[in-house]
């Protein structure tokens, strides 16, 4: 895999940025997509947010100082873009974020891009019961196995708080699945 520092240098140079950007997209498109998908649920919305995320990345790459890993910086942008997208959508439809998420889950059952069985659908419903930030923590750790140290950079939260939140999230989800 290409060295991150080299890629970053190429992204910041006018001569190489176009090719470097294509490399960046190739490297991270799937990881960022699945991260976004778990937040916004629908494929079409995820595609929109992914586009916006990469546009924002290319627009802000000159401001990236290397204080964190490139991938955590990009995850942070993707997370913010996804949440902003949901907030805007809820505002546009004049409903709360909670209602918006419920509607997304109701649509999921008929979604051609969801092939989950009953328990997977129930898992999504269980995740939706968690507070927004706890949902992010659960998804990142449970499905993507992101290290607490990296998650700490992405969510700007201490590792201790993340561990505690994840522990509580898993317990709540287990409880929801056994009760429903």
């Amino acid at each position: 895999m290409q060295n991150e520092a080299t890629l970053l240098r190429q992204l910041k140079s006018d001569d190489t940025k176009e090719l470097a950007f294509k490399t960046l997209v190739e490297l991270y498109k799937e990881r960022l997509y699945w991260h976004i998908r778990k937040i916004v649920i629908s494929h079409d919305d995820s595609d929109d947010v992914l586009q916006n995320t990469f546009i924002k990345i290319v627009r802000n790459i000159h401001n990236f100082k290397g204080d964190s890993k490139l991938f955590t910086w990009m995850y942070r942008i993707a997370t913010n873009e996804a949440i902003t997208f949901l907030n805007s959508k809820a505002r546009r439809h004049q409903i709360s974020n909670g209602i918006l998420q419920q509607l997304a889950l109701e649509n999921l059952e008929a979604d051609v891009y969801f092939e989950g069985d009953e328990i997977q659908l129930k898992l999504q419903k269980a995740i939706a019961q968690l507070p927004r930030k706890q949902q992010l923590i659960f998804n990142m750790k449970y499905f993507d196995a992101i290290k607490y140290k990296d998650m700490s950079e992405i969510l700007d939260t201490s590792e201790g708080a993340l561990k505690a939140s994840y522990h509580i999230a898993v317990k709540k989800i287990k409880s929801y699945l056994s009760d429903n």
Partner: protein
Amino acid sequence: MTLKSDITSGFKVPKAYFESFDTDFILEQTLKQTVSETGFKTPDTYFDLLEIRLPKTANARTLQQLNKKTTFYLSGIAASLVLLLMFSWPSETPQTLTAEAIENYLLNEEIQSDEFASLLTSDELDNFNPISISSSEIETYIFENAALESLLID
């Protein structure tokens, strides 16, 4: 000379580290035995065909700023339209259009900044300032409406 049998490395772990590690690990593993995948999928060739549609002009920043500003402009344009209609519409026609209705219409159409941008030249985009808005009005608007989370990373 013999080594003392009670010599330790000196390393320590946080209190109850191993107990909580075991608990969390077991808790997670038992849940994963029940369900471990999301069930989401994508169209078959989605990642193969995925292209990031960067704004066409070299001045990407202007386009993105336009995206943020679009709401400002739409609000202003909507207000201007209402004023225009109020003063020029024949009196027998019911004046039911409000600034909010027009603003909602424009927002719900989901008009993208690229679509606006495609109607303008680069020079026009650079000098795009159709409405004069005071700093205090902008500040008030941002506090009440803008998605501050996304602005924080800029």
